[in-house]
């Protein structure tokens, strides 16, 4: 029987072209209706270091990277070494490796599982048959296509798309190499059905990473000013918006630092143009003062934090969920909101929700994404995007010459219509100083109380309008898991497997983190006797946050956490479920 789920990893040095190869596989498969989830991984060298790419291919939308690698291709064992802790090989997995590599594979592979090793003369074929040593990655592509039954037409199309127009000669050589690899596999490669990926109907899927999805969401939400300073893993947002915003009359500026980036956005938004900035932990730390200004002056602003391992420079290329308390804590009481996307597609939606929230409630809104969502590529169905487009405009005042405009007029919702420059009669003074209704500075503590009440009143509206959470599993289970962000994938797949095993369990993944989405949380907690918070934060930030801010938590409220970098696997989560839902099996 052919398979419908395959996880593939390619490893080599930067010059080996494994990233291009994985990218071709992802694009070709996606164009043919196969869902991919693709992750790149690099050594610390700026150029030419080790690199690897992992593609999970599946007939259904993949929820996680897949626990085990079914097929591994290694150009050089020394380069592969760096990734050994990221590649968990499935027993019986196929391992194709460069025949000319002098190292012994046994030195790099786990001794306790059986594997199917096969040496392949990638280099030799590229050199002798094609005459271009650099094409060995296309030889590999041909080999893989033949063994795993990939759509070869689409792969060749991907090669042509990349080289065809600009470098027809290179395209021809690459195609030749592909065919040579295929021929080799036809003669020497394994020919088993269980290695072959079944085609999946052919609906054309699109491919994007989380940062791009988020940037596109921002464009659709009406963001027309973006300023940012490059930082991994948020940089793709800057790159994408630079390509797209100017066409829509927007502005993108690469700022001199993150302080400039966020303050430019404060200025643009104050002037009436929707604005967004993005960074990661260290850059967000530099932005904190300006977030306080946006809070005090009630200026809409969207700030994206694509979290990486911290503190400080940490591990830029790996995810963590330990910037939650940073996002919560600013100087002074700053009513604001925090949203968290749970996968690539969700980034699109969350960007629109965040911008809508910031505009409606005139406050800074933080999006907490992470490296695993931001930089991984996913295949997605196109029809799920446009139907969700959401744009919210801020309240403008009705101005009249008889009445002096009161920028910070008290209101039940806490929102007061905001004049923007150009509106006659709306002139007022904005400042980070505490102020009265007109905006004039005051040091009266009475006003500070009143204005703090006004600003905080908005949180009620935010919790009402933006309480959205995903719930998986058995509603009436007594054991529940709470997690957020990119952990959703592994948790969701673990829940499906647990249900297959007859275990009862439910999971809750909120999109709104702050203010507490109490309505959906309380609904979820009904009947739960034991709840466990799962997170990639050594200090269990989410767990402590919920303990401090949420209500209706059960007595048995547990934490399972660890430092970031190493994602939770489906198997790991499943084990937790087996341990904790045991009482229900007995019942």
């Amino acid at each position: 029987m052919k398979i419908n789920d395959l996880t593939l990893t390619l490893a080599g040095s930067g010059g080996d072209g494994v990233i291009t190869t994985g990218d071709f596989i992802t694009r070709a498969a996606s164009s043919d209706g196969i869902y991919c989830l693709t992750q790149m991984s690099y050594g610390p060298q700026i150029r030419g270091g080790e690199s690897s790419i992992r593609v999970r291919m599946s007939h259904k939308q993949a929820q996680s990277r897949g626990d085990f690698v079914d097929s591994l291709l290694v150009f050089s064992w020394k380069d592969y070494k760096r990734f050994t802790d990221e590649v968990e090989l499935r027993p019986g997995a196929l391992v194709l490796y460069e025949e000319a590599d002098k190292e012994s594979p046994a030195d790099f592979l786990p001794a306790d599982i059986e594997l199917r090793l096969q040496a392949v003369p990638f280099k030799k074929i590229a050199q002798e048959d094609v005459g271009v040593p650099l094409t060995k990655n296309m030889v590999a592509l041909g080999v893989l296509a033949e063994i795993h039954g990939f759509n070869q037409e689409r792969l060749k199309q991907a090669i042509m798309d990349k080289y065809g127009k600009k470098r027809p000669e290179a395209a021809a050589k690459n195609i030749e190499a592909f065919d040579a690899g295929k021929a080799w596999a036809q003669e020497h490669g394994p020919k088993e059905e269980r290695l072959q990926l079944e085609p999946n109907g052919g609906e054309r899927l699109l491919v994007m990473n989380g940062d791009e999805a988020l940037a596109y969401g921002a464009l659709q939400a009406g963001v027309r000013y973006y300023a940012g300073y490059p930082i991994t893993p948020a940089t793709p947002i800057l790159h994408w918006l630079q390509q797209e915003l100017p066409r829509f009359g927007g502005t993108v500026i690469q700022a001199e630092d993150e302080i400039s980036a966020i303050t430019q956005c404060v200025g643009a938004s104050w002037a009436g143009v929707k604005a967004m900035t993005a960074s990661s932990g260290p850059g967000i730390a530099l932005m904190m003062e300006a977030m306080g200004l946006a809070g005090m002056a009630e200026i809409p602003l969207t700030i994206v934090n694509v979290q990486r391992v911290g503190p400080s420079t940490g591990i830029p290329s790996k995810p963590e969920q330990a910037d939650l308390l940073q996002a919560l804590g600013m100087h002074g009481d700053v009513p604001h909101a925090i949203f968290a996307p749970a996968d690539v597609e969700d980034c699109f939606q969350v960007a629109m929700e965040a911008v809508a929230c910031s505009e409606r409630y005139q406050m800074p809104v933080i999006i907490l994404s992470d490296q695993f969502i931001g930089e991984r590529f996913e295949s997605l169905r196109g029809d799920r995007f446009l139907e969700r487009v959401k744009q919210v405009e801020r309240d403008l005042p009705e101005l009249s010459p008889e009445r002096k405009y009161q920028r910070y007029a008290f209101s039940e919702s806490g929102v007061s219509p905001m004049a923007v420059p150009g509106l006659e009669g709306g002139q007022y003074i904005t400042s980070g100083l505490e102020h009265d209704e007109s905006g004039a500075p005051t040091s009266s503590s009475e006003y500070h109380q009143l204005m703090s009440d006004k600003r905080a009143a908005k949180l009620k509206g935010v919790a009402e309008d933006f309480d959205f959470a995903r719930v998986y599993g058995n509603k009436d289970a007594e054991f529940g898991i709470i997690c957020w962000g990119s952990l959703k994938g592994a948790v969701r797949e673990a829940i499906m497997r647990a249900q297959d095993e007859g275990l009862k369990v439910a999971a809750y993944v909120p999109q709104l983190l702050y203010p507490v989405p109490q309505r959906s949380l309380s609904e979820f907690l009904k009947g739960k006797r034991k709840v466990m918070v799962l997170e990639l934060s050594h200090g269990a930030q989410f767990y402590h946050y919920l303990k401090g801010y949420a209500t209706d938590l059960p007595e048995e409220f547990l934490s399972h956490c660890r430092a970031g970098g190493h994602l939770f696997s489906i198997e790991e989560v499943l084990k937790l479920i087996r341990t904790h839902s045991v009482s229900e099996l007995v019942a």
Partner: protein
Amino acid sequence: MAEKVLTAKDYRTDVQNIWCPGCGDFGVLNAIHQAVAELQIPPQDLAVISGIGCSSRLPGYVNAYGFNTIHGRALPIATGVSASRPDLRVLVAGGDGDAYAIGAGHFVHALRRNPNLTYIVMDNSVYGLTKGQGSPTTPVGDPTKSQPFGHSERPLNPLAWALALEVTFLAQAFSGQVKQLKDLIVKGMRHEGFALINVKSPCVTFRGNQEYNYYREHGWNIDKDGHDYHDREAAFRITQEKERVPFGLIWQDENAVSLGKQLELEREKYSKVRQYDNADEVLRTFFA
């Protein structure tokens, strides 16, 4: 109905002014009121942006869209305003600490970008609001709250610095000479690009009341003296002047491309390669 002619009075506000009597910043405020009246800028089209400091309280005292922001960040905030709303007239105000200490990093890059705005630095050689510490322009030896035995760091020369950074409009003025200052503000606001006006604006509370006399005695009106503000070498010499304090337009480059123009060109370029009718169509670029 004929448009109402705006006068300086129309730009006043009733926000309570907190400056000390005799503070040089009053002269700057007057000059601004007169300049924007001369330019007949509708108050709603005028954005006045500042950082933090005594001087940065100024936007509250101008009938305009005012924004008293945070310390040192007036320029990037104003850049965001100017770049996103090229239809507005943008005036930025602040102190020497705001501009040349905490905001120094942004100052450099604002000059590079050349946004269309006029930056009035009220240079009093002291931190007024925090009550008398030394600033980047405090002369060596002057006692300050933070260094009672005399300021030890060498002062920076904002004029030479800005000129070296290829500022496109550079002037210096004295808040005691409101007429010249007003004229320079008018010229600065007519300049397409970044106009820097460094204004000697005495802090009577923390630096005594002798500075007015000093600037009157040592002031050198380069406008009257026939300085050619297109002569870069002469401009550099003026910034190096030790005996006299130059007041007037030092340098102007009308040909430099402003940030707003640059962004317009960019939008045109991208529009040629990105031929969509609407944002929905962008989705197709993602298809594998």
